[in-house]
């Protein structure tokens, strides 16, 4: 039986890719506190943007279960947004409004939202 969930794990952080209706959902779990998280995240996020583009689905980065991310983690994330935008791939960032640090961190990322909704930052 094929496991429909693909996982990337590095240290305390794991990403799980779930295929959903009209989207590829990348669920972030644990803590992202590596000094150079780009080494791990850039390949995973680039592959996810490319896969979403091939399948014509939205890429959803789901941070709601994440416990912590350092500032170095934001760079690969905003670069993935930029890559998706340039490739014409719709991308959404979901976070938990119940977690104060997430509400603060992700409110700043709203600067990347587009009027057509192709880049969206959504508090749940």
């Amino acid at each position, binding site marked *: 039986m094929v496991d429909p969930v693909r996982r990337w794990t590095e240290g305390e952080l794991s990403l799980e890719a779930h295929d959903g209706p009209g989207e590829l959902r990348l669920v972030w779990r644990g803590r992202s*506190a590596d*000094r150079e998280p*780009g080494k791990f995240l850039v390949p995973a996020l680039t592959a996810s943007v490319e896969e979403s583009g091939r399948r014509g689905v939205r890429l959803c980065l789901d941070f709601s279960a994440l416990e*912590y991310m*350092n*500032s*170095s983690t*934001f*760079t690969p994330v*905003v*670069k993935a*947004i*930029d890559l998706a935008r340039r490739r014409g791939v719709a991308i959404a960032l979901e976070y938990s409004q119940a977690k*104060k*640090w997430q509400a*603060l*961190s992700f409110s*700043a*990322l709203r*600067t*990347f939202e587009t009027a057509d909704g192709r880049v969206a930052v959504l508090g749940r």
Partner: protein
Amino acid sequence: MLEKCGLPPDESDSLAMVAQELLENAVKYGAPGAEEIVLSLRVEERGVVVEVKSRVGGDESNVRAFGGAMQRIRDSSDSFGAYVERLQQAARRPYSGGSELGLARIAYEGRCALEFRVDSGYLAVSAVYKR
């Protein structure tokens, strides 16, 4: 530890983030192989001071570059705007170590004022949180 000092959970989480960002800065930009990095925390009635002290890495230009980054953050009257500006720059630039995102995040999310001093080859960076 912070909650044991009487700080509410939200403030504790925020200051833990501040401490982590300062420590990461010290590891990234401090002297390679430095034997110690000192983290101190002072809880006062009117605020909290988080300080990280480490041996200066590289030459004088490193300290000047760090001082410039600190000054840019301190000069900004809008910590949210400064943080957003650095996020936008990070999205456009090739990867590099000097995004200043950590310092801007301390100012915005941590609601801290930043200070630093260089003394006898050591750099001490403080984040001052007013309650």
